[in-house]
């Protein structure tokens, strides 16, 4: 801790004001979610008064229109399923690629690395056509698509850390008669656990908020939260602003709860992911 000089106090005051600026947009949306829908666009920066206050009407409205709890459920299942599958499969793949040397092995590794810089719009159309043809247009199929499309970054991060595991550990286990599958689950994966947290957090942030991929693949039958919010938009000007505000608040709440619970891991994950990325 540095002593509280005048300059430092000024910096703290400035940072405090800036923090308010950073939170303000969320607060404004929360305040507006309690106003009648026709009062929001006309006076977004005022508190609701007796004439404009609408209680939880917007929330009830929005939840009905978008089936918010259904969307929450699909978002949760898809995110947990895809993140779990990605962490399991790509950590195994990464260890394999780190240990089995050869031309084929490094070709596969470089294909994974290559996939990281390919923007989604490049494969958007063909990927959704393939998913439809193979009948992968359901939440389970989407989870497998996330494994395929998201494998690049995760394999890349895991491989970097898997290469650093001392070979002696693995040799000792082999001498003791431990096969590769058991060795992975009892020795390698526990060593990779901090990396697994990083990979899980980076993927969870992406998949939970992802709009276009789920919209194109399952959007007509299943709505995740971002799809439900976008669905409220309807035609420009004709939408229910109150329901939209309420849905924005409802979609931010789970993120804030997740953030408060795992803040330490999220920040560590971002740093670790960035250094490797």
């Amino acid at each position, binding site marked *: 801790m540095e002593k509280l000089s005048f300059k430092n106090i000024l*910096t*703290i005051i*400035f940072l*405090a004001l800036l*923090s308010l600026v*950073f939170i303000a*947009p969320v607060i*404004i949306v929360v305040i*507006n979610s309690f106003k009648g829908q026709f009062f929001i*666009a006309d006076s*977004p*920066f005022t508190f609701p008064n007796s004439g404009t206050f609408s209680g939880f009407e917007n929330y009830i409205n929005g939840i009905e229109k978008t089936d918010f709890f259904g969307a929450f459920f699909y978002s949760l299942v898809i995110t947990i399923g895809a993140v779990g599958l990605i962490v399991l*499969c790509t950590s*195994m*793949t990464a*260890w*394999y690629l780190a*240990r*089995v*040397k050869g031309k084929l092995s490094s070709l596969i590794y470089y*294909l*994974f690395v290559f996939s990281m*810089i*390919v*923007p*989604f*719009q*490049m*494969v*958007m*159309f*063909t*990927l959704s056509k*393939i*998913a439809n043809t193979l009948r992968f247009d359901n939440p389970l199929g989407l989870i497998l698509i996330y*494994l*395929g*499309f998201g494998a*690049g970054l995760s394999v890349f991060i895991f491989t970097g850390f898997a290469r650093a595991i001392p070979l002696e550990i*693995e040799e000792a286990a082999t001498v003791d008669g431990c*096969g*590769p*599958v058991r060795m992975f689950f009892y020795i390698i994966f526990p060593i990779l656990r901090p990396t697994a947290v990083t990979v899980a957090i980076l993927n969870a*942030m992406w998949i939970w*908020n992802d*709009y276009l991929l789920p919209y194109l693949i399952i959007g007509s039958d299943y709505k995740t939260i971002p799809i439900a*919010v*976008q669905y409220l*938009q309807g035609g*420009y000007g004709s939408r229910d602003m109150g329901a939209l*505000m309420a849905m*924005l608040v409802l*979609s931010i709440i789970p*993120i*804030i709860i997740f*953030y408060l619970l795992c803040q330490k891991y999220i*920040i560590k994950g971002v740093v670790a992911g*960035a*250094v490797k*990325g």
Partner: protein
Amino acid sequence: MHSSLKKHFFIFLLPTLIAFTVFFIVPFVLGVYLSFTEFTTVSNAQFVGFQNYIDAFTGDSTFLNALWFTVKFAVVSIITVNLFAFLLALALSKGLKGTNLFRAVFFMPNLIGGIVLGYIWQVIINGILLPYGVDLTFNANYGFWGLVVLTNWQMIGYMMIIYIAGINNISPQLIEAAKIDGATPFQILRKITLPLTMPSFTICTFLTLTNSFKLFDQNLALTAGAPGRETSMLALDIYNTFYGRIGYEGVGQAKGVVFFLLVAVLALLQVYLTRSKEVEA
């Protein structure tokens, strides 16, 4: 051991590889192929050579307009996001009171999804423009600066975290030694902190560059390209080419390939240029 691991490739390698092949390699290769054909469904593709690429640039001006808009947006965003993020990181790596709280607050917007962010800022910016009797879609400049503000709000916290990690990695002895030698705070910043945080700059400019170029959700939610297609960025323009009208799928795919090449070349060039400025302590 490694030969026995090799024999278990069907457990370790195959599941990921199959998913990766079916949902990335095949769509990618098929996409490159289809960009040289005319098609509405994949099965009726007719080879047309480079016609789609020519159409992408000459047909109507939306693609070139989106390209120009995206480049301007990326330049402004890279500069502003990294400047503010670095300044905040400097302020938050002094061990001041409340550092953890401030850091948590500044990072928070990054966790909110692009669609939600877009609508939050749409309400706010429309509210600010209200007294002037216009809204966000009145003029493309409003959409442009709206996207810049939104992107700053979203990305500053993320980049700040990476810069803080970089600054904290600098050995305190180095700074002490410079202070004893009579270096001013500005000299310490220019001669020590900046050069030694170059790896963080490489990462952060890479991330802001690629994220700015690939921006889609925020663009769709904030303006959806309005007025007209004037605030459409590349990703949104490609999306509209594919799904906006029938018969332009081939052109959309050609735009996709150009988009990919652009992002790939810029990303490699950027990493090459900033890496060359990195120094060892």
